[in-house]
Structure formats: structure tokens, C-alpha cells
């Protein structure tokens, strides 16, 4: 018995077959040329604000950048939640005396750093978001954590509860709307007797 020959023969059989080689090559290529971006750091803050005669705003902050604001219109004045947005921003930045920018352009206008604003017209309460202000992320989700619960906020309005990073939450009430978060829904309720609510559905 010649060890060298036997060993060569046997270890040669251990060599990867064509299928394995192709799989390895494919995986290497996949890693080398992947265009998938890494998910942004998920340190976020969210502020829920409800202001004067307008309704409410939700601002999501990733790091130091506000990436999303959501405002709710006042029926009477057709403001788009900018006072509420301003109030919420005050809470986030501790800027006293800032009451938002009461312009009809919406929350995006009132928040200098707000790249995206989702506004809601309370006259059309079935739609949470105005379509042309859909948020775009590097990936299609951002993760929020409210009251210890984690939410994956998809741009389809779904909110899920998987793992996520910590988010500071501030809720500010007032005006003619209240914002509340319960186990199932994030809700913006006009402060009147009609049963109307805006919500982000939790799957």
C-alpha cells in the first residue's frame, strides 16, 4: 500500500463537485457585487405632537436627522399638522418658544430638517398618507419602538412588531386632537365626539 497514492486518490474525491464550485462562485460574486445597502443605524426618536387648532404630528428622527414627519390637518383651518409638528420638534430639541410654522404647506415646511413629511387631510380620514409624500428609505422599512414595543413601519402603512433598536418617544397632547398609542394602534383622535380615528395598523 502506497500511502501517497491512496491519500491523493481519496482526498481528491473530497474535492467539491461542479455544483458546489458554482455555488461558491455565485456566493462570492453575490457578496462582491451586492448593491444592497446596509440598513441605516436604527437609533430613532419619535415625537407625537398635538397642537393648537391643527391636529397632530409624528416625527421620526434617525440619529440627528429627521426623516419623517406626519401631520394631521385641522378641518377648520386646513393646516397640516405643522403646529403639532413644531411642538413635537420642540420636545425633541428642547427649543423653547418654537411653535411650529403655521403654513399650509405641511409639516415638512415647519421642520427644517424634515426630509419627508406625510400629511393627512382630516377631511379624508380614510387615507393616512398623501400619496405623493411617500417616504423613501434605503430600505423600505424603519423600525420604531413605542412604549417598549417595537414596530416595523413599512411604507405600506403596516406596522409590525419584530426586534428593533431603541427609540425615544414623546407624546404631546393638546389642541383639538389627541394622540394615543395602545397595544394595537397608534391613533390620532380628533378631540370631539365623533368616532374618527387615524391609525397605523399593527399586523
Amino acid at each position, binding site marked *: 500500500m502506497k*500511502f501517497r497514492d491512496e*491519500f491523493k486518490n481519496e*482526498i481528491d474525491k473530497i*474535492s467539491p463537485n461542479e455544483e*458546489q464550485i458554482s455555488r*461558491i*462562485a455565485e*456566493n*462570492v460574486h453575490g*457578496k462582491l457585487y451586492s448593491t444592497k445597502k446596509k440598513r441605516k443605524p436604527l437609533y430613532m426618536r419619535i415625537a407625537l405632537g398635538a397642537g393648537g387648532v391643527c391636529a397632530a404630528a409624528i416625527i421620526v428622527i434617525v440619529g440627528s436627522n429627521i426623516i419623517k414627519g406626519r401631520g394631521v390637518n385641522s378641518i377648520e383651518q386646513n393646516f397640516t399638522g405643522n403646529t403639532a409638528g413644531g411642538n413635537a420638534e420642540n420636545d425633541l430639541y428642547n427649543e423653547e418658544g418654537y411653535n411650529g410654522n403655521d403654513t399650509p404647506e405641511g409639516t415638512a415646511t415647519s421642520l427644517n430638517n424634515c426630509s419627508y413629511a406625510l400629511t393627512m387631510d382630516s377631511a379624508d380620514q380614510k387615507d393616512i398618507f398623501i400619496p405623493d409624500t411617500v417616504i423613501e428609505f434605503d430600505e423600505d422599512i424603519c423600525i420604531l419602538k413605542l412604549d417598549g414595543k417595537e414596530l416595523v413601519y413599512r411604507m405600506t402603512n403596516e406596522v409590525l412588531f419584530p426586534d428593533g433598536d431603541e427609540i425615544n418617544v414623546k407624546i404631546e397632547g393638546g389642541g383639538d386632537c389627541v394622540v394615543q398609542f395602545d397595544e394595537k394602534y397608534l391613533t390620532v383622535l380628533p378631540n370631539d365626539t365623533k368616532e374618527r380615528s387615524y391609525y397605523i395598523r399593527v399586523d
Partner: protein
Amino acid sequence: MELSLKTAESFDEVMRFYTPMVYRIAFTRLGNPSDCEDVTQDVFLRYFKANITFESEEHRKAWLIRCAVNRANSYAASAWYRHKSSSEDWESLAENEILSDSRKSSVEENSERSERRFLVLQAVMKLPPKYRTAIYLFYFEDLPTAKIAEITKARESTVRSQLSRAREMLKKLLGEVDLQ
């Protein structure tokens, strides 16, 4: 098939040519097909990212061997590897190879040979990991001890003593065997 610097221009060519070698090095250390694939992928990722201009094909091969040995060692030292249990170990792989080989011709003709092969592989895989690498490079890649020492960054005397001890162990495990 010979690969020269001229013919090995593309990354794909290099990868396809050297994947079996890298995989076998990983196998002698880890003994598990899935782990071997992981290590092989990692080696070629590093190869690509390193973007080294090699002086010769031998230089490239030596770099890949060195990288494969290092990556396999790192993988074996990882907590994941140390704590996992796998059903895809080398013995089941070897047995499958032997079975498929046996099916190709008569059972009588091959059973003895297959069993002997299995014993050779089994014996090698029973050696301490550092001996296995030396055995592989010496007996399969036909590298001289000086070259193995250069690649593994060990002294030549260390490589020689590793081979010597490995041979002694193999003799005990395999009985009479020509280990030259």
C-alpha cells in the same frame, strides 16, 4: 490543467481553478462540507479584496494556501464551530463517497479497496489538525518541506517534525504502510 499568469486574468478562472485546493485544505482542518464552503468563499473574497499583484503563479498559489490555512484555523477556533454539532461530518461524507464509488463497479472488486481508502482518510483525520495540514501539503500538493514552512510561516524543522510525528501515528493507525 496548467494555470499561468497570462491565462489567469479573470477572477472567475482563478476561483474555479483553485477552489478544489482551498476546499481540500479547509476539509483537512474542518472535515465538514458546509464549513469548507464557507471558508472557501471567505478565502476568495479576501483574495479579490486584497487585489495583490502576484509575481508568479506559484506566488498566487502560496498566498491562497496560506489564506486557506489561516481562515480554516480561525473558523475552527470560533465559538460557533466549537459549540456546534453537525451530522455532516467527514465520516458520513467519506462513507457516501465510498458507497457511490462502489456502485460504479462490482462490490466484490471494490469493497476491499474502498475500506482501505476509508481507513487512510480516517487515519489522517484522526491526526491533530496541524499535522493534517502538513500531510495534505506534503502528500497531495507535493510541496517540499521548505515550501510548506514558508507558506505556513513555520520553521522547516518544525514542519519536518510534524510530518515525522504524523507518519508515526499513521503507521500505528494503518499498520504496514509505505509513507514515502
